[in-house]
């Protein structure tokens, strides 16, 4: 098992109140699997991802990736942030090269040829010398994907990476992500609010429920890729997930009865 999330719980203290962001989360992810996390706002998706990525140091339980424990100073993964995580003072090429510069193993020439390769992969070769603010949202997202892939990580975390894009750009980049994922066989953990997107991309969908944040259900998707969004199986899955999410909402309602 490539990723092993073992009984992970996380509480936040907020103005004296204790908030259970995650409760006893157990999940195993195989190498090269594409996993989506969905669930209502506040169910702990970002918290879980931050723990996997080593951004969160204090939590209960254990996370292992590739047999090694994830800590604040160690996570083999690279995160693609919702705000693209590009540095505005670097050109697109220099952004793609940032992670390579951090590794001492590459010469300047090697760095250059690797960034060439990944700029090409995401179709931004002619924008190498541009700065992030000169690109559209979709192009920036592709640049962020290129910069994450360039360091050849074993696992990529994406937190609603396409949330800010219009429907057309979204579908285009979904296809690109799939193409790249299939080529590199990288393990992906992907947060989205979009059920169709999750079904279109994932091997498995992890549906979470809030207060306390936990895994509600895990759904396997066996439809062959490329998936048609209007196939009966696709629509059935969507109905099923909606039902689960609806159920998840109902669960938190007792608060209002009394």
């Amino acid at each position, binding site marked *: 098992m490539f990723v092993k999330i073992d009984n992970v719980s996380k509480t936040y203290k907020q103005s004296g109140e204790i908030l259970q962001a995650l409760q006893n989360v157990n999940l195993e992810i195989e190498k090269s699997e594409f996993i989506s996390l969905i669930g209502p706002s506040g169910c702990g998706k970002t918290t879980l991802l931050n723990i996997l*990525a*080593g*951004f969160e140091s204090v939590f209960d339980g254990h996370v292992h990736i590739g047999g090694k424990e994830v800590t604040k100073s160690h996570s083999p993964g*690279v*995160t693609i*942030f919702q*705000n693209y*995580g590009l*540095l*505005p*003072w*670097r050109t697109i090429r220099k952004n793609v090269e*940032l*992670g390579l*510069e*951090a*590794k001492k193993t590459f010469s300047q020439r090697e760095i250059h040829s690797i960034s060439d390769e990944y700029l090409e992969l995401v179709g931004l070769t002619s924008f190498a010398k541009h*700065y*992030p*603010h*000169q690109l559209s949202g979709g192009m920036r997202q592709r640049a962020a994907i290129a910069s994450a892939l360039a*360091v050849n990580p074993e696992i990529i975390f994406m937190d609603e990476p396409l949330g800010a894009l219009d429907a057309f750009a979204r579908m285009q980049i979904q296809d690109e992500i799939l193409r790249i994922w299939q080529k590199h066989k990288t393990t992906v953990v992907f947060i989205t609010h979009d059920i169709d997107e999750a079904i279109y991309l994932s091997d498995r969908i992890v549906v979470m429920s809030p207060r306390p944040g936990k895994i509600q259900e895990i759904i396997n998707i066996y439809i062959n890729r490329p998936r048609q969004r209007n196939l009966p199986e696709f629509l059935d899955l969507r109905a099923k997930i909606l039902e689960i999410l609806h159920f998840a909402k109902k669960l938190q309602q007792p608060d209002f009865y009394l």
Partner: protein
Amino acid sequence: MKKAIPIIVGFTVLITIWQLATLTGGYNPVLFPPPLSVASGLQELIREGILVESIVRSLVRFFIGYILAAAFGLSLGLYFGHFLNVWRFVNPIAQFLRPISPIAWLPFVVLWFGIGDVPAVVIVFIAAFFPILLTTVSAVSKIDRNYLKVAKNFGLSKFHIFTKIIIPAAFPHITTGFHIAIGSAWVFIVAGEMVGAQSGLGFLIVDARQNIRADLLMAAMVVIGLLGLLIDLLFGLVEKHIYAKQGITKD
């Protein structure tokens, strides 16, 4: 070029009002010299080579003081901005020293360093140091946390986090501090040279006063103002270039 028009119009109006006031007001020209005699005073200073020499002297002292302040202010600011726990102890001291006018230091500076180039350099240093230090600290402490996440994401070393993330991220804000500092430090070069030097634009003022030459006094003031304006404009251009590169629009 479009920017030059308001500057030219503004100065033309100012000089016209000044000339009219001296023509119609009946003031003693020794107390309030008309622009034309200031212009001829300026010519006299140029002809005798005093002006260029004074300007060069002042600029050299100014830039030595400013560059030293920039070097110290920047490196200390980067350090304290990153280690805010240390800054908590230093900040009160900085806030205590800052309101003491650089001019108040002058008597000590002259006693310690004597008359010459040093007092003016030290005064410029004091005047420029605090704005640079304080804006650098605040620039570093306020950088977008997401940039640090990006750094951690790619496993950047501490050294690289400093050189590749913190310094460039704080850079636009730091330039603003440098800009403020260069303007306020220029104000104090004159005071430094009036008390502690035998040359430079500040000394020109003292000299004109002792010889009761209002035209030369005013001419020196005009030159000081123009140089200040020029320094500010040049710095503004550099700043704009930096901002434009990062896609930051700032007015």
